[in-house]
């Protein structure tokens, strides 16, 4: 035992090369975000002149303050936070509950149910029928439209189901022999052993809700319910295309009020940071060896 630990601590060429490669990958991924953040804190002139790379020039916090105090940003931010939290909880309940029975090979009708979930993954009705449905249910222009849209993903179901299937059968069997019911096994044995996949899927749902742009476009016309993604789209993407075409004849008033590059950068930064904070919290559930702990407990 002592020997193996010693061997583990020796740093090999592989370690060095691997570490350097990883640092390089990290830098490449980090650059654009640094660039955006630097732009958000730089003076507009430096941003437009393309001088800002990874460090703010003409440091100022006015742009960020301006974005944060824009009432539309605040409204959309609250909408998206609410939708993300409630939606993720609902989606996790639906998915995890469905994944457990489907991971049981003996369940009669399992294939049929699984096939339904495969089917909805491949076929989608499209924009018009979905709109009609939401309208018929009187969900349009309510926050529930944003919550119910995307509250289930077959892909996530399969991820969890797959994971459940890899759990060692013996533990469940042992619990069953002890007289535990399906439910008790599900809650006290299966779920605690599955934290890595549960954390992953929570992240998937949370990010999907946070970046769901289409639901707002489809079901919302009330600006008080406009999700953050749509606000960002209007401010960033639409501004970019308006700017591109500002030489052609169009709505001059609109063209004049297009937000500047630094405001766009700041908006992206402040509307992305909150969702970035979810992953670090979930990371602690990516724990090795939890299997062993759960057997004993």
């Amino acid at each position, binding site marked *: 035992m002592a020997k193996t630990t010693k061997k583990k601590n020796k740093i090999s060429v592989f370690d060095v090369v691997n570490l350097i490669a990883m640092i390089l990958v990290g830098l490449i991924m980090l650059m654009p975000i640094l660039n955006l953040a630097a732009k958000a804190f730089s003076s507009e002139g430096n941003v437009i002149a393309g001088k800002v790379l990874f460090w703010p020039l003409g440091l100022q916090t006015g742009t960020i303050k301006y974005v944060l105090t824009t009432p539309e940003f605040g409204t959309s931010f609250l909408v998206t936070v609410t939708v993300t939290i409630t939606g993720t909880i609902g989606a996790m309940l639906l998915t995890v509950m469905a994944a457990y029975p489907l991971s049981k090979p003996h369940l009669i009708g399992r294939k049929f149910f699984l096939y339904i979930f495969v089917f909805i993954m491949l076929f*989608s009705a499209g924009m018009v029928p*979905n709109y009609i449905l939401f309208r018929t249910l009187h969900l349009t222009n309510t926050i529930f439209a944003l919550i119910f849209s995307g509250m289930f993903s077959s892909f996530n179901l399969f991820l969890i189901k797959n994971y459940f299937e890899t759990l060692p059968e013996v533990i469940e069997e042992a619990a069953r022999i002890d007289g535990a019911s399906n439910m008790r096994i599900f809650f006290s044995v299966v779920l605690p052993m599955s934290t890595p996949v549960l954390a992953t899927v929570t992240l998937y749902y949370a990010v999907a809700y946070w970046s769901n742009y289409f639901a707002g476009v489809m079901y919302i016309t009330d600006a008080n319910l406009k999700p953050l993604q749509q606000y960002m789209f209007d401010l960033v993407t639409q501004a970019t295309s308006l700017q591109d075409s500002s030489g052609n004849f169009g709505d001059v008033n609109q063209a004049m009020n297009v937000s500047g590059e630094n405001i766009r950068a700041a908006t992206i930064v402040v509307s992305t940071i909150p969702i970035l904070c979810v992953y670090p919290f979930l990371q602690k559930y990516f724990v090795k060896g939890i299997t062993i702990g759960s057997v004993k407990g």
Partner: protein
Amino acid sequence: MKRKGGARKYLQQNFDLYLLLLPALIYVFIFHLLPMVGILIAFKDYNMFQVPGDPFRSILESPWAGFKYFEQVFKKSEFQQAFANTLIISLYKIIFTFPLPIIFAVFLNEVRSTKFQKGLQLIVYLPHFLSWVVIYGIFVSFLGSTGVINSVITSLGFEPVSFLMDSGKFRGILVIADAWKEIGWSSIIYFAAIAGLDQECFEAADVDGATRIQKIWYITLPSLLPTIVLMLIIRVGNIMNAGFDQIFVFYNPTVYDVADIIGTYVYRMGLGKLEFSTGTAVGLFNSVISMILVHSSNFIARKATGKGIW
């Protein structure tokens, strides 16, 4: 062991499992299956105002058009080009970008410091959150004729390369941009899978004196296999989605021949026309192809690894 007692006993033992399944089934029925009636639009001359104020009856009562809209789209020569481009770009993306997150996750796992691992995970998934419009702006300033890459190329005495306007290179750029954006995000699932691995196996291997590469090859990768198979089947099923959002932002008329996919082509063709029937027909076509591919890959997976996704 479970089915011995007949139907009654089976139900008694398992009805709670069905209850667990029920909410998802209800949701899926309401929000996914019910609207499927709307696929009829693809076979009709859909007029939204057929029955004013009642869009659902408008679908039912619009006149039948048979396969008119399918023919209309498929007959065009540009469509065949777009179809081919869709498949080619998608295949490139699968071949080159599918393995990257796995490799990345495995090698990151080999880094000694857990803190470093966690920190790097947080960095590499950042690009996923940027929209293609923003990424395009960055790529242009890097790849433009006066961009960083070309500055290096010209200072070495070569001619500048127009990456984004060269049909020979454009698909490569699409793949690279896509890989860069999504590696970190796609690797999360593999981190989670690796985190769930049984540590005892590794310790046993250590005792046997296995090398790092041997441990990766004989322990880590095989235990990732179910996840990899699932991801691959789903990715293959997604083949008709070659990345509309990305291409729509990245492409320009000089590379239409290699970059115009079904989505972008239908978009340009339908400009100003609001053809819901065409859109639905194309969507249905894509879904059918996906279904065939998912079935075949699931079949292959079952033969090869003994386990498909359903």
